[in-house]
């Protein structure tokens, strides 16, 4: 995976405030897209979320059985059987603004390359969401 983060101007300032050894090796691509969802779009997405769909049910079951997990990495491993498309569906449903809050939060506390790899992944998903939002208009 390329060491690249798609960051807005504000997020770039957060990144610049990280220690140099954490920032080292990472490229920044400006996130200039702003195709956020309209409120009615987000409401429709919530209604479209199918909690009875087998992969979504598996995801919920995994969460229900995660009580003894000791750290975030173990949690990720525990969730490993859940298809990526389920995760993407959840991110699609919460939308770009909520994703931006997650990105800002994790960017503030990143202390390692692994953390920034996670942030990079979130910024890439948000970028693809922006592109998908921009290419379809109401009929």
């Amino acid at each position: 995976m390329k060491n690249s983060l798609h960051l807005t101007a504000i997020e770039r300032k957060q990144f610049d405030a990280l220690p140099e050894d954490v920032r080292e090796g990472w490229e920044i691509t400006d996130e200039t897209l702003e195709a956020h969802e309209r409120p009615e779009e987000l409401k429709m997405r919530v209604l479209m979320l199918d909690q009875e769909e087998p992969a979504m049910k598996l995801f919920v079951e995994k969460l229900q059985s995660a009580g003894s997990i000791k750290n975030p990495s173990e949690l990720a491993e525990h969730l490993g059987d859940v298809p990526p498309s389920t995760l993407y569906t959840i991110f699609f449903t919460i939308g770009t603004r909520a994703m931006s809050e997650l990105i800002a939060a994790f960017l503030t506390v990143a202390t390692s390359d692994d953390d920034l790899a996670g942030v990079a992944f979130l910024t890439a998903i948000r970028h693809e969401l922006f592109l998908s939002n921009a290419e379809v208009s109401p009929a």
Partner: protein
Amino acid sequence: MPRSHPTDMAPLALKDIPVEGLPVVKDTRELADVYGEKDLKLVRAKLQTNEGKAQLLSQIQEKNPGVKDVEKAADQVNLNTEQLQKKEGFLTRMVKYPFRHPYKTAAGVIGVSAVVAATLFGLNALGFKLPAIIEGALSAVPLEKVKDIITTIFSLGRGTQVLPPGADLGVPGVTV
């Protein structure tokens, strides 16, 4: 009768979603059952012309006799199919993206993000308790902000039985 031109459509008010008598289509496989038309692009195309829209609405009324307000129904079809198209486009993009499995690529952040997202949707109310260590990681996330966005939308949809019985938005340590 449909409005004279599709561009006359005003956005559907949040309180009117979902429109009475018209189910939300969660997946393109449900299109034929709800709209009498299985092709998403064709449904979208029909909304663009008066003739197509009238034909589509007629099919929809036949499939869903409980629909009272056809104009609102048309607005919902527009919004619903717009989101189906965006979702399809997004998931296609993600399949093509050169990622490894997300949990293996960036385990901690993605795992925690998934939990945050799921928690915001009230899935924790099904019995899931956040492990203490994860709560610590979550303390960095401004959950109130994220939750505000979701709660606003969700509370408006609460009457629609989106959530399983007894489910509620709840984030440990956060009071709204």
